[in-house]
């Protein structure tokens, strides 16, 4: 960073962004090696949420899995959440932050999906036993130590996502584990819990939720932070997802499975990225988060060098009238005309920090801006400075404001705006976040974005937000009951991987087969005497392609494919025909198989009948081909091509091929 005499003079924030990106040794994910992750001490773990497939919700008798549009509601309820004291007599940090935001929470209720329980006007009904049983099965699959008695606990959430202000949740097992390809990942615990509301909007001081999803049964599997690269993280997430699905008793589709990931770098802090809906996003998100923390530690180092006693650090601020000061910044002027207050800030020692790289395309300014949005409820854009990457203060503005604020060269000049009521919180928020920069990485939960970066969501809650639910009795889990469940567990996923390898099923199909829980289907078909590699490829490639392009009939189930093979066997057809029949039964599962054959124009022919036109075709080929020196293989291939379609199902294509070959060559 270049030294200069006056804040903002000859300072290029873009260059500073690039320089600091380089200084911390940021590497894009594609170029990162294991060594890079070791260098910055990448460490991460998962909290995998999975909805269970039950008819009803967890603590009331409302239907589960029924959803409605944002505007399809019958009533609205308003709540304000107040922080309550923890058991130790302290307020939780998150709680205080949420209280500062003074949000009005609106719930949109549809009578079909919501009763008085969800909105906290009725105590809970006894827990849904169907859900409890599925969750216990999955706990056993994860090798957890199963508790003797289930205690329902209240876990506080003040963001309003649950109208009670807490989630009812209970531990079913502790200390389990899963076996990945090259390592074992320890699991901390599995809990059963009620799902939260879906957010409709969050603008200013009003956050709107709908309650359809609220109360649906969900499990959360928590791993130890044993994943040391983003790829391991992805592998663990896939494994847990496949394991959950192997029971056939969990929900699939958008939002049915979501994961949070905890990431830290060496010297950093556990930061939680919440609600990642696709496992394939995990590597990029965790990669960027780890480097964000690495960048924040670099910022800390710079700041401590400038001031080793950060306790005394304060910022200066002054409210300004942009017209009186002849401010040029167009965005600030626009907001002033809307009635917003404009406040100029001098951030001592922060020269070069606000444009310091944090994430690809983002800098420390985003750390401030995100908090202004979440805590002070001021919509973006809500801040600018002489270091802003997009719309910086002009040198004129900077000079004027610097003199008003009596700023020194090491200061950064920033400008914020917002409704008068929100300005005190905004100032507090900025000062607080700047102070934290001297400490390093704040404990936060962050929201994932599709580009692989994250936004501040809230302060990470402490451990003191758990209370026993005084409205529910403990539920004993008898030994005999657990044993009964243990007897009917599906096969372990790592065993499944081994089986797939043994069956010589191509590796690129494995993820799809496990995601759809298709291995039991393959086993059944192979047991009928069909070659495993063919069946695996049919399901792992052909079916996958079909699912991508064709509409699925509501009655189609994978068992229909087993029936298809049974039909092929009984009728002595060749299994290659299944490739053509599969798209038909996928769209018309109720059609009988003979009609399927008719619909694909299948005609039964003997080998003799099929081979009869071969001589004629060889002559024909010579007629239509202009090239004189055609190789015999080309003749064979062309004839094969002519006969293939009618031969399909009647004869093994390989046999047909060799017969044609013997006639040509």
């Amino acid at each position, binding site marked *: 960073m270049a030294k200069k005499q006056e804040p903002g003079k000859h300072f290029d924030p873009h260059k500073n962004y690039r320089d600091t990106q380089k200084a911390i040794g940021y590497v894009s994910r594609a170029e990162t090696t294991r060594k890079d992750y070791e260098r910055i001490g990448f460490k991460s773990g998962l909290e995998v949420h999975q909805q269970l497939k039950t008819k009803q919700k967890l603590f009331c008798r409302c239907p589960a899995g029924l959803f409605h549009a944002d505007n399809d509601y019958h009533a609205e309820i308003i709540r304000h959440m107040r922080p309550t004291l923890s058991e130790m007599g302290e307020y939780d940090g998150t709680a205080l932050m949420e209280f500062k935001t003074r949000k009005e929470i609106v719930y949109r209720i549809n009578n079909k999906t919501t009763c008085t329980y969800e909105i906290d006007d009725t105590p809970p009904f006894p827990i849904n036993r169907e859900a409890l049983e599925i969750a216990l099965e999955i706990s056993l699959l994860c090798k957890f130590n*199963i508790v003797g008695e289930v205690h329902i606990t209240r876990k506080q959430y003040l963001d309003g996502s649950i109208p009670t202000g807490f989630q009812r949740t209970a531990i079913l097992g502790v200390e389990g584990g899963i076996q990945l390809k090259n390592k074992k990942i320890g699991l901390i615990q599995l809990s059963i819990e009620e799902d939260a509301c879906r957010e409709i909007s969050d603008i200013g001081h009003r956050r709107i939720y709908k309650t359809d999803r609220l109360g649906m049964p969900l499990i959360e599997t928590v791993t130890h932070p044993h994943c040391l690269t983003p790829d391991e993280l992805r592998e663990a997430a896939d494994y847990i997802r496949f394991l959950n699905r192997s029971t056939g008793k969990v929900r699939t589709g958008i939002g049915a499975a979501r994961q949070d990931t905890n990431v830290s770098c060496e010297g950093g802090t556990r930061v939680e990225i919440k609600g990642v809906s696709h496992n394939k996003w995990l590597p990029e998100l965790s990669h960027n988060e780890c480097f964000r923390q690495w960048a924040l530690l670099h910022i800390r180092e710079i700041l401590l060098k400038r001031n080793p006693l950060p306790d005394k650090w304060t910022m200066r601020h002054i409210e300004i009238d942009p017209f009186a000061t002849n401010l040029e910044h167009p965005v600030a002027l626009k907001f002033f005309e809307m009635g917003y207050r404009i406040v100029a800030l001098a951030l001592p020692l922060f020269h070069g920090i606000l444009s310091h790289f944090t994430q690809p395309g983002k800098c420390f300014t985003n750390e401030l801006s995100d908090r202004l949005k979440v805590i002070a409820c001021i919509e973006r854009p809500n801040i600018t400075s002489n270091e802003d990457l997009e719309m910086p203060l002009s040198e004129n503005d900077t000079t004027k404001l610097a003199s008003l604020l009596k700023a020194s060269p090491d200061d950064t000049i920033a400008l914020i705006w917002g409704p008068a009521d929100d300005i005190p919180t905004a100032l507090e928020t900025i000062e607080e976040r700047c102070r934290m920069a001297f400490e390093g990485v704040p404990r936060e939960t962050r929201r994932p974005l599709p580009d692989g970066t994250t936004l501040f969501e809230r302060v990470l809650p402490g451990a003191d937000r758990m209370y026993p639910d005084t409205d529910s009795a403990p539920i004993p889990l008898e030994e005999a009951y*657990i044993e009964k469940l243990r007897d009917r567990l599906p096969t372990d996923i790592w065993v499944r991987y081994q089986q797939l390898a043994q069956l010589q099923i191509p590796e690129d199909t494995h993820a799809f087969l496990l995601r759809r829980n298709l291995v039991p289907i393959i086993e059944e078909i192979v047991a009928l005497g069909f070659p495993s590699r063919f069946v695996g490829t049919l399901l792992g490639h052909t079916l996958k392609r079909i699912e991508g392009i064709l509409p699925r009939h509501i009655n189609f189930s994978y068992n229909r494919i087993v029936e298809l093979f049974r039909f092929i066997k009984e009728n002595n057809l060749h299994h290659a025909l299944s490739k053509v029949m599969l798209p038909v039964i996928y769209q018309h599962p109720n059609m009988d198989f003979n009609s399927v054959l008719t619909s694909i124009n299948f005609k039964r022919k003997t080998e003799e009948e099929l081979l009869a036109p071969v001589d004629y075709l060889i002559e024909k080929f010579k007629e239509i081909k202009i090239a004189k020196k055609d190789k015999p293989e080309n003749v064979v291939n062309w004839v094969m091509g002519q006969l293939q379609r009618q031969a399909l199902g009647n004869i093994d294509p390989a046999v047909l091929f060799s017969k044609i070959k013997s006639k040509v060559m």
Partner: protein
Amino acid sequence: MEDIFQGYKGKALDVLKKFNVRVWGKVVIETTRGEFQGTVLPRAENDDDTHIVLKIATGYNIGIDIFTIKSMKEVGYYKATYKIPEKEFPYTPNLPKVKLLGTGGTIASRLDYRTGAVIPAFSPGELYGAVPELANICNLTTEKLFAVFSENMGPEQYKALAIAIGKEIENGVDGIIIGHGTDTLSHTAAALTFMVQNSPIPIVLVGSQRSSDRPSSDAALNLMHAAYTAGHSDIAEVMVCMFGPTSDEYGFLHRGTRVRKMHSSYRSTFRTISDTPLATVNLKDGVRPIKDVYNHRRKDRNVKILPYFEEKVSIVYYYPNMKPDIIDSLVDNGYRGIIIAGTGLGHVNKPLYPAIERATKRGVHMFMTVQTLWGYAHMYVYDTGRDLMAKGIIPAENMLPETAYIKLGWVLGQTDDPKEVKRLMLTPINDEITPREPYNGYLIYQGGVPEVEEFIRKFRK
């Protein structure tokens, strides 16, 4: 000596003793289901004796089946002590003086989750710690009179409350709040209406439907509304202050004699029956009267305290096929007053007639109210009604059954003269009988009707 096995009994207690483990001990337990670590918590007294409760590192609680335990070792000890932080309630000149009288119940308590015991958050400091907004409303002082659950409030407490209120009024407070459990809140409100007459200041009863330990509790808002009403409102009556809609929007002020709890768990459970509430209250708009006639706040201190109650009074909820021995047994047990909640306009069946005649002869005072809650007892409409009146039952107009019960107890605490009892019962003190029922006094709209649904969508329930 301190109980080191809090709540454990029978087999579970034996196991703790066998392995030398205490409540609050940090333990490692080897079981047939694997290893568990955590802190042993007290067990609720009513739970079984075959499980031990642990708080594990992540803050959750779990139970361990004692039959699966192979070994257990105490490796540490940490006793959590639970305390509500206190902050001194700041004094602000020019704000009204409000006294909060505590009786127990959820507004003034927090649950100790581990033991199930009630820890009252009650001193002004504790309340200020939990609801700091109170300091902007009034200068609050508190006094704990009893610590009982709502259902255990009775004549002794009514009388003690009335006397305490009298003293506070004499001492010059500007308003009184009474913290109370919600189950019998309206009974107490009725009792205080009769026992504290001509009050120069507001007397506000308040509770909460969701305990104050949850973020969505109605306790804080109810308390703020009550404090505002007590300190600033012009309505010098005994009132119940609870949620209007179930949303966090405004409270209702109900007259103590016409209010009733109408839902077992809703926040907006309290409704004024056969009339409209007195007013609404919220911090933005203050108290907005709905009724235009009420007793106004005064400077004088001329309150009448009438702390009387005869306990031998009962309430009989009539059902078809009721046998006369129900009435007989009350009479034989020395009851002096009976409130009947009759069907329809105020009826019971013929087989009861002899028992009623017998009761009248024995000097038992009987009044008829209606199970329908809304509307008047009209005993001239049918012969049955006339028969009953001839046998000594007096229709109590549109007095609510519970209010009538409280009033009869209060009246019989003062006189046994039938004429005087009748006169006192039928002379309303504060609208327990109203001369007329306004058309908007009975509004129970039925869900599903398009106009109602449209209304509900626009205005919160």
